């Protein structure tokens, strides 16, 4: 939540800029956005009409680059590099690696060091831990614990990344599952409360019957 508050203003700023730019200036804007240290979301900029217009133009690579930062990982960039994406600046490289950690943290709660080192192209544990602490935890995009003994990173919180359109259905499905489960739980609690009330009523009645009978027996005695 905090990360969203922090980057909301930055997103506004870039979206307003994008509305009055096109072509080369837009390319420069995208470069600036993908290098910004506090920006980790690009859907709003992608949704801007001027940015969409880059499709099919000679700046289409800029659009591809923005999509990479919105949805992709460092591996995607290395694989797609053969497709001629422009070389990334050091800030962009760091940003893409931070986003890669986010994607990994979304899928698993315990991330082995080996997998992390491979995914973000880091050669040793020390460098990896420095990156996780300085570039990820201090940036507020993830929270968790570094387990040096088991060589893994335990994720407690990870900020959300931009969603691909096709992921929406899956998310809606999960949410409705959760809602269904919660409704069922509430219903069963209601039923249990009714059951408990009924049992206590029955108990009281039974208690009274016993007392009446005791009285009768006393009288007859």
């Amino acid at each position, binding site marked *: 939540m905090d990360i969203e508050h922090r980057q909301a203003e930055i997103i506004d700023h870039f979206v307003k800029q994008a509305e009055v730019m096109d072509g080369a200036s837009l390319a420069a804007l995208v470069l600036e956005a993908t290098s910004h240290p506090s920006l980790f*979301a690009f*859907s709003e900029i992608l949704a801007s009409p001027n940015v969409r217009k880059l499709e099919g133009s000679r700046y289409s690579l800029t659009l591809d680059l923005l999509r990479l930062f919105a949805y992709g990982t460092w591996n995607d960039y290395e694989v797609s590099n053969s497709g001629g994406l422009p070389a990334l600046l050091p800030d962009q490289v760091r940003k893409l690696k931070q986003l890669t950690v986010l994607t990994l943290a979304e899928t698993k709660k315990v991330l082995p060091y080996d997998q992390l080192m491979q995914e973000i192209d880091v050669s040793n544990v020390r460098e990896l831990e420095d990156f996780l602490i300085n570039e990820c935890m201090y940036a507020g995009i993830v929270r968790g614990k570094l387990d040096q003994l088991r060589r893994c990173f335990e994720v407690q919180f990870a900020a959300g990344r931009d969603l691909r359109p096709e992921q929406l259905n899956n998310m809606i499905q999960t949410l409705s599952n959760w809602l269904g489960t919660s409704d069922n739980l509430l219903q069963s609690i209601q039923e249990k409360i009714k059951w408990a009330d009924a049992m206590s009523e029955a108990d009281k009645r039974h208690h009274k019957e016993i007392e009446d009978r005791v009285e009768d027996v006393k009288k007859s005695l």
Partner: protein
Amino acid sequence: DHSLLRQVSSLLRRLPTMESEKFQDDFLMEFNDTLLITYLAMFTNC
């Protein structure tokens, strides 16, 4: 609202909160222990 979508996605990614086998074992152990206490208490009451 992209921001809201991202937050929902982050929240959903954290569920299920605990799904390790060890947790299930401990949970069931605790569950049964408490039910046993309840059972013994009913015995005592009777």
